[in-house]
């Protein structure tokens, strides 16, 4: 009976790595996994995610199984051999300090380039569009025909971001009121919008489509509904759309002036 208890508890601990691995193995089949990536840099982000997943997954399984094995094997009711009176092992301490240290240091250096590409090597160009977070909407400002932000011909829109594919995009991110975070799950981009700061965000989209813009930093009671959409399209249709929107803006401004 007591031996069964030991078996029961050790199996409970064995269930941790088993169900842990199953959860991660099955999740993609139910689409509970990384959303589709349409960006140029996303592959290296996802690659790093998978690399760390395999690495930590391996350590997870090995240590959890070792834990199970020790619990089962060294159950006081099961075990005949003497307790090993040991205060530790100098060699083991050195090994399990140096090996993880080397792995972690490698991991740290390995990822630097990806990070620098996404957040430090900013393309030398004028902003494609300015995105301003405001409770609870994304205000967009395109430079207009003169290509310069802050001039009277700027195009103002809300939540409906259109961008051309296959070329560098530079977004100037601002916030009017509180913190927001400009999160494009499908582009693997996230950047907080901070009042008082102009933060550059850049990427290149590879595929056409319409995707979510999510606010990922708590910005008040309506945080959940601060939703925008981004449309990636060819240069031609992007310019066509821009022209249509510009005409619409002109028309409303004209009618406003008359009334």
């Amino acid at each position, binding site marked *: 009976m007591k031996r069964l208890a030991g078996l029961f508890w050790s199996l409970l601990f064995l269930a941790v790595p088993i169900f842990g691995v199953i959860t991660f193995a099955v999740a993609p089949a139910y689409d509970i996994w990384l959303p589709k990536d349409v960006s140029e840099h996303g592959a290296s982000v996802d690659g790093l995610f998978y690399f760390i997943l395999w690495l930590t997954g391996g350590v997870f399984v090995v240590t959890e199984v070792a834990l199970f094995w020790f619990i089962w094997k060294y159950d*006081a009711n099961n075990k005949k051999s003497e307790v090993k009176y*040991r205060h530790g092992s100098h060699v*083991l301490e050195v090994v399990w300090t140096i090996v993880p240290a080397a792995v972690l240091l490698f991991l740290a250096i390995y990822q630097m380039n990806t990070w620098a590409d996404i957040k430090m090597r900013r393309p030398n160009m004028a902003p494609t569009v300015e995105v301003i977070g405001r409770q609870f909407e994304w205000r967009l400002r395109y430079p207009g025909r003169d290509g310069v932000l802050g001039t009277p011909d700027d195009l103002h829109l809300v939540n409906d971001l259109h961008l051309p594919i296959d070329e560098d995009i530079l977004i100037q991110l601002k916030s009017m009121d509180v913190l927001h975070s400009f999160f494009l799950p499908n582009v693997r981009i996230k950047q907080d919008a901070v009042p008082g700061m102009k933060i550059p965000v850049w990427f290149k989209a590879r595929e056409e489509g319409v995707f*979510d813009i999510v606010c990922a930093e708590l910005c008040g009671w309506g945080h959940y509904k601060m939703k925008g959409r981004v449309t990636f399209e060819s240069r031609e249709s992007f310019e066509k759309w821009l022209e249509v929107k510009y005409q619409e803006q002109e028309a409303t401004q004209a009618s406003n002036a008359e009334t």
Partner: protein
Amino acid sequence: MSTVETKTTSVQDAPQKQETHVHAQPSSARKLSTFLSTYVFSKDHKVIGLQFLFSTLLWFLIGGLLALAVRWQVAWPWSDVPVVGKLFAQQGGQMAPEFYTMLFTMHATVMIFLVIIPILAGAFGNFLIPLMIGADDMAFPTLNMLSYWFMWPAFIAFGASFFVEGGAASSGWTSYPTLSTNVNSSPGAGWGQTLWLIGLTFVGVSSMLGSVNYMTTIILMRAPGMTMFRLPMTIWAMFITAVLQAFALPVLTAAGFMQLADRSLGTGFFTPEGNIVNNAIATAGGGQPLLWQHLFWFYSHPAVYIMILPAMGMVSDILTCFARKPLFGYRPMVYSVAGIAGLGFIVWGHHMFMSGMNPALGTTFMVSTMMIALPSAVKTFNWLGTIWAGRIQFTTSMLFALSFVSMFIIGGLSGIFMAATPVDIFIHDTYFIVAHFHYVLFAGTAMGVWAAIYFWFPKMFGRTMNEFWGKVHFFLTFIFLNGTFFTMHILGAVGFPRRLADAYHYETFHHLQPLNAFMTYCAIGMVASQIIFAVNFFWSMFYGPVAGRNPWNSNTLEWTAPSPPGHGNFDFQPIVHRGPYEYSVPGVESDHLMQTDPPNAAATAAAAAAH
């Protein structure tokens, strides 16, 4: 029982006091003052520890119920909340989004500031430090009493904030400006936020009084023979935690005052020029919202270790006791706690990778963050080494301690994902983070706390808790916690953001409702399982089997004192002859040698041979 013993000692004290200054006091008044000085304004570290324990367990219940309300909204947004919906929510029985925002803010606030930090340092630190180092009490008993009573203004401030206009604070437990500093930004940014800051300050005062006391006591009041390297891991962890508190806390206190000043005096430390919130232009400018984040995390990242190190220490002691084996790598364990604490001061920026902070600085914080995984790994390997080739006894306490190790592995490994800056771009502020810190703080610390409660309960109340129901409690908690929190990892892999009252209108997340419903069922099960614990706890306090001085055959000094210890703790002067982990020493008849057992030739020979 403790009540009887402490009462007799205080009754003995009482007549002396009466002789000196209160002559004509009626006896009922004297009884009242005795009662007050024994149970309410007691300076006995054990009573203060228990006061902390009962208060924090009560807040644990409140925090757990807040969590259930959060889970309800995430699983079934805008549906009527059962039972309590009519009482609290604004629109019929359903939850308003501002109410939801308040719920998760206060869930985190309560759990961190009113449960985890005070239960570890306040309850166990207070109860265990003098007992485990062989002292009769803390170095500063009055400060110690004040450290408990300074929690009460905090309890009242946080508790009352639910009932003020606009409700309690709702800008997240991190309280980032300008959401928190601008009263126009949200309903909870009014009185709720002010009370939150006041409460936080009092929690800080309490922690500071405690940490000064713990450091002094551990340095100055150890029993003869108790060298620093004969201290149990629990005490090492408490000591280093106290040092962390003392150095990190002033920064948070200062930041809290700055935010209060921003809100009430218009100082604008954290408000930039031209800030327009809700169509109202801020009166002051010239500040920087990121400044708060730096100051806040300069405390709150070390606080993450304040919330886990004492649990690590207690688990180390429990594992050795029920594996009947010396701790594997005592000194590496001490050094890794110190390493975690030291590195803990230079990793705060990893909370700010996406904040707009200089990305090159992000790289620096990434490297230090990667390195802090190292001492954590060393600790895990040493725990595995401790139970290896031991004789494991499956007590409830041991099961909780083993699960601490198992769960800490998950929480530790998932941390590597977010330490990697490019991966953090995607998972920052998603449920992956929520999974990570719940594995560390609930599946880690809370399980460690339960291990400690089951382990030291006999010392606290002189009786043991029911083992059968303890194991049922463990089993259900273990199953449900994994059901709730493990699934959060894959939710985070989709990018499912935290703190959204309803995320299903996003195309990316619309299919995740069934998974969230599953997690909520598990969370309900997890909270319900605690009923077993509560009944067992209170029943055993009065009707549990009477425990002797040393029910677990453990080695450390507290087990040489009576259970529960009377005023002054020890009925003899403990003299320490060895370290705390001399279990199963070859050639020794008993399978354990207590720290106070007289020197033993066989033990000395065995120790020399083992080194």
